[in-house]
């Protein structure tokens, strides 16, 4: 019978939740890296036992951890489990090194971006928000970081190199941090076209590369943001998350700061599909595993509150690719609930009856084994959840 493994990053460690295909009884492992902020964990589609993890701290900086046994044991890439040195005996400690490329040969001189007050500010590395393993090579993995840039490792996370054409894009001085920082939070790899990469940055917008990261194009036409001087600007939009169904790589769904958006031409043009949502602010968005027109969002009250509206935790589902939305409430608290669901904290499994999962800032991880019709908590009292990913295992 198939199994599912849910990878949960929280403010105070990582947790791994496992169940068989019925998804009724769950085993909880953790906390791993107790006390550290775990922004994201994600498994390799090629080798599901290979899991990458971003462990970070305001005190001690960025650590990359890797498991090759499905999360049972962890090590920093380049340092074998339980040992202090690299395989050749020479300590390197490079796996937590994220250095912006400022070489004249391959990169751009370290540029500046817009600060909160509109002045220019130099790029400063803070943390890894998102790790995206390749669909074809378990040693190839991308990292989206704050301040916004895209890094790549081809050796299983031992060494990281910036794909500097993105940060060096001519619009860089117009990028600015959102409330959570200037983060590159979304990386989508097109399984059908290995040269195509989508990324999204808060607050710059979405970008696309069609040459494996050598060059980048802003794809923000159709986005309208009243909180920037030119609401229709080429960049500057606070994109919160983007999702794609692998069978339709030209169709993208976006939860923007305000507005739920859709593109059917690889981001060249977007149109709004917020429809009858109670509020079109939110962070997460995801697509059903088997129905490319079924999408999920979790509306959030904003600008200032950032919790669910009316004390009710409701996921909204559209079976028509947007515009027409239905609230999904069965099993979710419908009174006195004031949690948020952060941008990387929703995922789906690939079992026949699609499972949907999300985590809250209140420490609950909810699961639905019937595409959202009903929900039950897997855990209720974790630290605030930053990210949720799901692996469907044979």
């Amino acid at each position, binding site marked *: 019978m198939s199994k599912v493994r849910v990878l949960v990053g929280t403010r105070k460690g990582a947790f791994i939740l496992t169940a068989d295909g019925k998804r009724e009884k769950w085993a909880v492992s953790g906390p791993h890296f107790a*006390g*550290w902020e775990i922004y994201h964990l994600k498994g390799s589609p090629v080798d599901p036992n290979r899991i990458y993890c971003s462990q970070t*701290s*305001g*005190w*001690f*900086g*960025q*650590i990359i951890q890797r498991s090759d046994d499905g999360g049972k044991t962890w090590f*920093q890439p380049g*340092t074998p489990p*339980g040992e*202090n*040195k*690299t395989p050749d005996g020479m*300590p*390197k*400690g*490079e796996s*937590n*090194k994220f*250095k912006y490329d400022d070489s004249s040969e391959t990169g751009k001189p370290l540029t500046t971006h817009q600060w909160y007050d509109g002045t220019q500010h130099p790029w400063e590395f803070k943390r890894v928000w998102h790790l995206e393993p390749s669909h074809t090579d378990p040693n190839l993995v991308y990292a989206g970081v704050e301040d916004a840039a895209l890094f790549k490792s081809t050796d299983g996370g031992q060494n990281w190199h910036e794909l500097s054409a993105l940060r060096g894009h001519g619009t860089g001085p117009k990028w600015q941090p959102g409330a959570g920082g200037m983060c590159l939070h979304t990386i989508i790899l097109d399984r059908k076209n290995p040269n195509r990469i989508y990324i999204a940055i808060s607050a710059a917008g979405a970008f696309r590369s069609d040459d494996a990261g050598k060059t980048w194009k802003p794809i923000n036409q159709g986005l309208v943001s009243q909180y920037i001087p030119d609401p229709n600007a080429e960049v500057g939009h606070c994109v919160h998350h983007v999702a794609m169904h692998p069978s339709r790589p030209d169709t993208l769904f976006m939860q923007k700061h305000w507005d739920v958006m859709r593109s059917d031409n690889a981001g060249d043009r977007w149109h709004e599909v917020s429809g009858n949502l109670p509020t079109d602010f939110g962070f997460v968005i995801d697509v059903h595993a088997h129905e490319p027109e079924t999408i999920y969002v979790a509306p959030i009250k904003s600008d200032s509150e950032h919790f669910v509206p009316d004390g009710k935790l409701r996921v909204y589902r559209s079976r028509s690719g947007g515009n027409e939305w239905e609230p999904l409430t069965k099993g979710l608290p419908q009174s006195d609930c004031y949690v948020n669901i952060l941008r990387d904290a929703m995922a789906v499994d690939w079992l026949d009856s699609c499972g949907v999962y999300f985590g809250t800032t209140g420490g609950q991880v909810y699961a639905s084994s019937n595409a959202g019709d009903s929900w039950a908590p897997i855990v209720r009292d974790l630290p605030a959840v930053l990210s949720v990913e799901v692996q469907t295992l044979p």
Partner: protein
Amino acid sequence: MIRVVLPAHLRTLAHVNGEVTLELAVPPTLRSVLDELEARYPMLRGTIRDHDTLQRRAFLRFFACAEDLSHESPDTLLPPEVVAGTEPFLIIGAIAGG
């Protein structure tokens, strides 16, 4: 022998319990102690000092013999008691809540 006390999270990261002891073949300065510490425990690189600039991370402080050495030059010699091993060199996480 230099005794170094690490914050709990860095002890976990380095797979050590209690103090770390270091033998230095060069004069024991802030820089040389941290160089040796990172050579012995490469997973600590970048967690105490920036990889490239070797600047102390903002929320870490260095104490020894009831003195704050955080803002001393990297070439400052450590106090004789630390060099003799009677007092430890302390790497402390700044108290900032959370």
